[in-house]
């Protein structure tokens, strides 16, 4: 199928994009990588009358260190997660997740901002952003604001972004030497959306887990923090018993629905298995000096 007719506007600045959106109200969509939007237009799941192309706005690109934060421009392509040295050094969880996102050619074009703004509950990056406690920098008619990941993901494909607002950058707290990360997902085929996936970041002090953030995806309407799991692990010495306790705690954090091909009980089981594997890998790396 083909998209319904629309007008096209190539914005050069954030203000140009915001102005165009403000003039067209609900009839406009921003297009970044287009890797989710173009199929949606072709299938006529969406039929906006104006596409505002944000790919040529310089202020949306670039990765820079700002004090204790790494600022990652919304237009940063998925493939850059694998090649950008600042991301490898200061946001390694994003790098660890990137190979699981789609296929190489889609990673050449898809953007971090597009993935986070879309908030597909089966996507890797929204969950990673949640695990990292990142902050989203948003530009709108009323100016700039920053929203923490815990408040950003509201419901199915729904975020704190109001219509006509632009996600400008994702700010990630700098990775520290006493932190450890783990990421993995279970999918039927490489590049497919995951049946269940998980990313985590732990802060280690004297071989104890001082603090840990665990986020899962493909488990409900939004990427989900496993708060009971985090509580079961905080301040603890990680061992087999503690991992089993964390796996049991997961039941309190997730309430997946039955879907056509994956019953809820199976998804919960897979999530427990995945959590066990990731904590096991973390256990082996607690004493390492980064």
């Amino acid at each position, binding site marked *: 199928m083909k998209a319904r007719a629309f*007008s096209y506007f190539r914005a050069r600045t954030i203000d140009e994009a915001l102005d165009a959106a403000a003039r*067209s109200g609900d*009839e406009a969509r921003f297009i970044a990588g287009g890797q989710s939007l173009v199929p949606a237009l072709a299938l006529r799941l969406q039929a906006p*009358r*104006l596409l505002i192309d944000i790919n040529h706005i310089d202020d949306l690109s670039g990765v820079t260190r700002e004090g204790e934060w790494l600022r990652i421009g919304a237009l940063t392509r998925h493939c850059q997660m694998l090649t950008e040295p600042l991301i490898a050094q200061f946001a390694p969880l994003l790098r660890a997740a990137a190979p699981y996102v*789609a296929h190489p050619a889609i990673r050449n074009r898809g953007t971090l901002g597009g993935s986070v703004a879309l908030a597909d509950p089966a996507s890797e990056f929204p969950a990673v952003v949640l695990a990292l406690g990142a902050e989203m920098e948003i530009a709108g008619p009323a100016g700039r604001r920053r929203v923490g990941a815990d408040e950003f993901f509201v419901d199915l494909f729904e975020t704190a972004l109001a219509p006509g607002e632009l996600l400008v950058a994702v700010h990630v707290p700098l990775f520290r030497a006493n932190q450890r990360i783990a990421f993995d997902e279970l999918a039927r*085929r490489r590049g497919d959306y995951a049946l269940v996936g998980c990313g985590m970041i732990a802060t280690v002090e004297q071989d104890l887990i001082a603090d840990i953030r665990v986020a899962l995806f493909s488990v409900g309407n939004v990427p989900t923090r496993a708060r009971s799991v985090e509580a079961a692990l905080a301040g603890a010495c990680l061992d087999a018993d503690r991992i089993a306790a964390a796996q049991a705690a997961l039941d309190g954090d997730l309430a997946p629905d039955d879907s056509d091909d994956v019953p809820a009980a199976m998804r919960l089981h897979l999530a427990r298995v995945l959590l066990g594997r990731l904590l096991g890998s973390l256990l082996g790396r607690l004493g390492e000096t980064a």
Partner: protein
Amino acid sequence: MSRAGDLDEADDAVRVRMVVNGRKTACDVAPRDTLVDCLRNQLELTGTHAGCEMGACGACLVQLDGRAVHACLMFAVQADGARIDTIEGLAESGVIADLQAEFHRRNALQCGFCTPGMLMTAHDLLSHDARPDRETIRDALSGNFCRCTGYEAIVDAIAAVAEARTTKASQPAEGSSS
């Protein structure tokens, strides 16, 4: 190019200028025309195939400013000012001649529908990773569907070319020692 707010002229033709396979090209497209439709129907470059038209099969891969992208997941207007290289361009320039020969030699194609996309992916992979192992090659091909050949011969062909290219690169250039 239309200005924001000209909503009533949505399907009017827009002039797009790009460098396609090294040649300056201009054509008139509706904003909703995808790049793959523009290449095939207007520029008569039919080597780029249209399969699923939703990013799943990889038949429509082209190079946009040197990186492989899906021509079905981009509108032609978005390519204004860009450099596009299609399978015709890569074939003419000779940069994939060894890949083409190896696909042929190993029967890595049957109907050939997937082949332009396979070659695009192989070329993109080998320009960033000179010595990929089989697992890496399979992973790179995860977005390319082939409904006839099975993937084994395709992986073999790409692995063989990677091997041959690195062997050649490590030998001293002809005449350099005398």
